[in-house]
C-alpha cells in the first residue's frame, strides 16, 4: 500500500503539467484546511496514547476517502483521457476505505471511541479553479502517502504493544 501511494503521487503529478510534472516538484507547505497534515514531530507522535494516535489516523483517513473521491471527480473533468490515473485514484480510495475499516475494527476492539463519519469537505470544494483543483489533488495524494506511512507506524507500535 505504501508503494501504491508513491506510485499514485507520481502518476498524479505526471498528468498535471508543469510545475507539477517537473522533476523534483515538491510544495510541502501547500495544505488543505479540510485535510489534517500527517507531518508530526516524533516527540509529539510518541507522546500520543494509542487512542489519540489511532483517532488521528482514523480521522485523517476518513477525510482522505472523501478527498480522494473529490480528486477523482476533478481529474475526470481535467484529464478525461487518462484512465490509468482515474483507476489509480479509484483504487486508492478503496484502499483508504479498507484501512479505515480495519482501524475502526481495532479501535472497537480496544474500546476506543470512533470518529463519526462527517462531511469534511463542506461546500467550499466546488468553486475551485482548475489550477486549484490540481493543487488540491497534489496535496491529497501527497497526504494520502504520508498518512499511510504514519498509519503503518501506528499499527506497528500497536502490534508491538499487543503481540499476537
Amino acid at each position, binding site marked *: 500500500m505504501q508503494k501504491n501511494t508513491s506510485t499514485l503521487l507520481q502518476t498524479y503529478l505526471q498528468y498535471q*503539467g*508543469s*510545475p507539477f510534472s517537473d522533476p523534483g516538484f515538491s510544495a*510541502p*507547505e*501547500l495544505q488543505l484546511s479540510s485535510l489534517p497534515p500527517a507531518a508530526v514531530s516524533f516527540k509529539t507522535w510518541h507522546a500520543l496514547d494509542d487512542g489519540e494516535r489511532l483517532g488521528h489516523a482514523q480521522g485523517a483517513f476518513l477525510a482522505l476517502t472523501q478527498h480522494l473521491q473529490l480528486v477523482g471527480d476533478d481529474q475526470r473533468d481535467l*484529464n478525461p483521457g487518462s484512465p490509468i490515473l482515474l483507476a489509480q485514484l479509484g483504487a486508492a480510495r478503496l484502499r483508504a476505505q479498507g484501512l479505515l475499516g480495519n482501524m475502526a475494527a481495532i479501535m472497537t476492539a480496544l474500546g476506543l471511541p470512533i470518529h463519526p463519519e462527517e462531511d469534511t469537505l463542506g461546500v467550499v470544494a466546488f468553486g475551485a479553479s*482548475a*489550477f486549484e483543483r490540481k493543487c488540491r489533488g497534489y496535496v491529497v495524494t501527497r497526504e494520502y502517502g504520508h498518512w499511510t506511512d504514519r498509519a503503518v507506524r501506528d499499527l506497528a507500535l500497536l502490534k508491538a504493544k499487543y503481540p499476537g
Partner: protein
Amino acid sequence: MALFSAFQTTFLLALLSLKTYQSEVLSEPLSLAPESLEVSIDSARQCLHLQWSVHNLAYHQELKMVFQIEISRIKTSNVIWVENYSTTVKRNQVLRWSWESKLPLECAKHSVRMRGAVDDAQVPELRFWSNWTSWEEVDVQSSLGHDPLFVFPKDKLVEEGSNVTICYVSRSHQNNISCYLEGVRMHGEQLDPNVCVFHLKNVPFVRETGTNIYCKADQGDLIKGIVLFVSIFEEPKDFSCETRDLKTLNCTWAPGSDAGLLTQLSQSYTLFESFSGKKTLCKHKSWCNWQVSPDSQEMYNFTLTAENYLRKRSVHLLFNLTHRVHPMAPFNVFVKNVSATNATMTWKVHSIGNYSTLLCQIELYGEGKVIQKQNVSVKVNGKHLMKKLEPSTEYAAQVRCANANHFWKWSEWTRRNFTTAEAAPSEAPDVWRNMKSVQGHCVVTLFWKPLSKLQANGKILFYNVVLENLDRPSTLKLLSIPAPANGTELTLDQCSYQIHVTANNSVGTSPASVIAVSGDPGNKEVEEERVKGTEDGFCLSWKPQPGGVTGYVVEWCERPGDPLCDLQWKNLGPNTTSTVVSSDAFRPGVRYNFRIYGISTERIPYLLEKKTGYSQELVPSDNPQVLMSNLTSYSFTLSWKDYAAESQPGFVQGYSLYLKSKAARCLPGSEKAVLSDDSICCKYKIDNPKQKTFVVENLQPASFYEFFLTPYTSVGEGPQGAFTKVTTPDEYSHILIRIILPMIFSILLIMILCYLKSQWMKEKCYPDIPDPYKSSVLSLIKSKENPRLTIMNVKDCIPDAIEVINKQEGTRKSLTETEPTKPTYLYLLPTEKSHSGPGPCICFENFTYNQAASDSVSCGHVPVTPKAQPSQLGLLTSSENGPKALGKNYVNSLGEIPAGETNLNYVSQLASPMCGDKSSLPTNPPEPALCSEYKTQMAIPMGLASPPSITLLDEGEHDH
C-alpha cells in the same frame, strides 16, 4: 488639490441643476441623459455589463440616441476605452451594453461613466451631449479575500494564436513573485505595486487539458496559478450538397478539428443560403437537410458556419441544383423473356426534371464476374436486351443511373438474378469401357464422364445406350439409364457390338459417343514397362501406330487396391504419342498401372502398351521373412521366397543383407556398413530383385553370427528390423557323431548278445557259489546220524582279537620241527579260549578265490602230514584222491568229524596273506586253537581234524 476638485464638481453640479431648471422653465430642449447606470461584472468572460435607462422621454416617444461610454482603469483619469453606442430609446427602457476587457477585471479597479445625445433627425435641436454620469467604480480586488497571491484570469478558454493578458495580485510586499508559462518564466509589467501584468501573444496549443501558468514566491511554497485552455478550431471540411429527388438538398461535411475544448463546450453548425436568405440550424454535426424551394431556384450559395464558445468558422458552396442530382436507384426492375441465350431487362427511373435524361449502366454477372457491361440513355423507362448467354446458367443483372447531362453521382445498383432456359447438350459424353469374359459371355462395363455445365446445357435426365450388333446390323437394343449414373454393365454374347451413348436433358439429346466391342477383348499380352512419376504426374509415351488409329485412350485406376478401382481414362488424338497423366488422387508409394489403347477406325480399342510406376517411390514398408537352411560350419543359406516385392511402395531393386560377426574384417563380397545404432557390420548387396535366396559363405566354424535382410528401392532400404542369431557348428562335431553313434550301437549290440548268452557267460565267467544249505552234503550228514552236526553261521562267529604273528627270518623250519614258535597271525577268537588249550579250529576255503591265494593260504599252524591231507589241496599235490570229485573230498573229511567236539578254529580271509607267508605258518602243534583257517565254509570238528585236514605246502614248494 482634492479639495479644489470637490469644489469644482460641486460648482458644476450646481450650474447643471440651474440650467435644467432654466430649460424646464423656459421650455428649452431637454438634454436626455442616461440615468440609473449600473455596472456588473462577468469575471469568467471578463466583461462589464452596463445597464441604464433614459427617463426624460415623452410617452411613446422613440428616439435614436447615441451614448458615449468611458472606461478608465485604476484611476478615472486613465481612460482606456471610449465608445459611442447608438440605439433607439424608449421611455424608461433599460438599455444594455457590454465591454470585454483584455485585462482581467480582477487585476485593476475600473470606472465607467457615460453621457447621451439624441441622434434623431426628427429632433435635430437635441443634438448635444448630456452631462456625464458619475463614475461607477468596479473593484473586484476588494472582494478577493485574504490570500497572499492571486493569478487571473481563471480557467480562461482562448483560441490558439490569440493574445491573452494575465496578471497576479500579491498582498505581500516582501516576496518577489516569479511567474511561469509551462515552466518558462514570463516577464511582465508592474501595473501597481501589487499587480503585475503579462501579455501573452500568440498562445500555443500545449495539450487538451490546458496550459499551466503559475506564479510563486521566491521564498516558501506559495504557489498560485491558472489553467489556460487553448483550443484549436478548424473550419468544416468536404462541405458538399446534393439532391436525390429535387425536393430536398442533403449537405454533408466533416467537422474540423476541435482540440482543446472540454467536452461540455461543443460546436454548433448553421447553414445559410444567400439567394433566398434562409438559414437553418443543423441538428447533426456532419450533415444537414435543406428544403428546396418550389420556385424553381436553380442556383444555391450556401454558407456553413461552425461555431464554438470562442469563434465561428465558415465555408461556402455555390452550385446549380441540377448539377448536384444523385438519382434514386432504378425501380420496377424485371428480367423478362428469358430464353436459353437471351434475356431482356426493363426498369424505371425517378424523373429528375422534365427535359433531363438519365444515363443508366447495366452489368451482367456470371459466376461472380462481370461478363457484360452496357450504358443506356433513359427518360423514364429503360430496356436492355442481353445476348450471348449460356443455357441453363444463373446470371445476375444490375442497373444504376446518373444524370446524363451533368454527371454527379451514380445511383445505387438495383439487382436481379435470373437463370437462362435449358438447351440440348452440346457434346457427346466421354465414354470408355472395361471388358471381361464371364462364362462365355462378354461383360462390358461402360463408363462415361458427366458433361460439364457448359456441355450439358441443363440438367441431364438420363443416358441412352444403343447396342448395335455388327453381325446382325438390323438388331438394335436401347437402354435408358437415369441420370446420376456414370456407367452401366452390359452382358453381351461374343458378337461384335457398336455402342452409342447419348446424354439427354429436358430439351434434347446430345451427339452420340460411339465405342465398339468385339469378341476379342483385345487384352493381348503386352510387356509392362516401368514409368517414373513426378510431382506433376506420369509422363507416358507410346509408339505411334501406323495408320488406322482414330485416337488413343490411356486408362488407369486411381485406387489400385480397391475393388472399385475408380477407373479413369483420357482420350487423346490420333497424332498424340505422349501425355502427362496427373491427378490429385495420386499418392506416394502406390503403384499405378496404365494401359494405353489405340482406337481403330471401327472404334474398337486395342491394348498397345502397359506402364506401371509410382508417383513417388518410398522405402519398402516391410522386410521379408527369411528362412535359414543348410547351416554348416562355413555357410548357411537364406531364402525369402514368400516375399511380395510387388506390394511394396516402390520398385524393389534388390536386397541388402547385414551380417554381424566378431571378425573384424568383412568377408569377400561384402563391405563394411554402419547401422543406425552405430554398430558396424558387413553388408552384402543383392542386386537382383528376383533373387530370393542367398548363401552366406566363408564363415568361421563355431562362430556366432547375426544377419538381417532388407529390400531396397530407389529411395532407400526397408525398416530396420531385428537381427537373427545363428551359430555355426564345430568342424569335428559331425565326424565325432559318425564315430560315436556306431560305437554306441555296437555296445548296445554286445550288451544284447551278452544278455541273450548270459547263462553261458555266467557259467564261463562267474559260476554260482554253492550254498551250503542247499548242498547235498547236508543230506549225507543227516544220513550218518550225527544230529549235532550243523553248519556254522558266519554271524555266530564273534571276532574278537587280532593277533599278529611275528615273522622271524632264519627260524624257518620244517613243520615237522617241534620247536614252539609264537604264532604271528590274527587272533579272532577270544584269547582265553585260544590259550585254554587246543581249541577247535575252523578252516574256510573258498574255491572262488584264485588258486594262488589258496596256495598261499597254507594255514600251516595245524600240524598236518601230507598224507593226512584230505582237502582239495590235493589238486595241487599229487594226492591220491586227486581224481576224485571235490564233493567226495568234502564228504570224506566231514565224515570224520567226531561228535561232541565244539571248539572251532577260525582263520579270517583277511589274514590269508599272512597265512600265506610261509614264515607265519604255525608250527606249534600245542596251539592249534590259535589257528583258524578258512578252507571251506563249514565248521569241521576238531576231533575229525585231528589229523588236520589242511594240507600245507612243502617248504620248497611254497618258496617257489
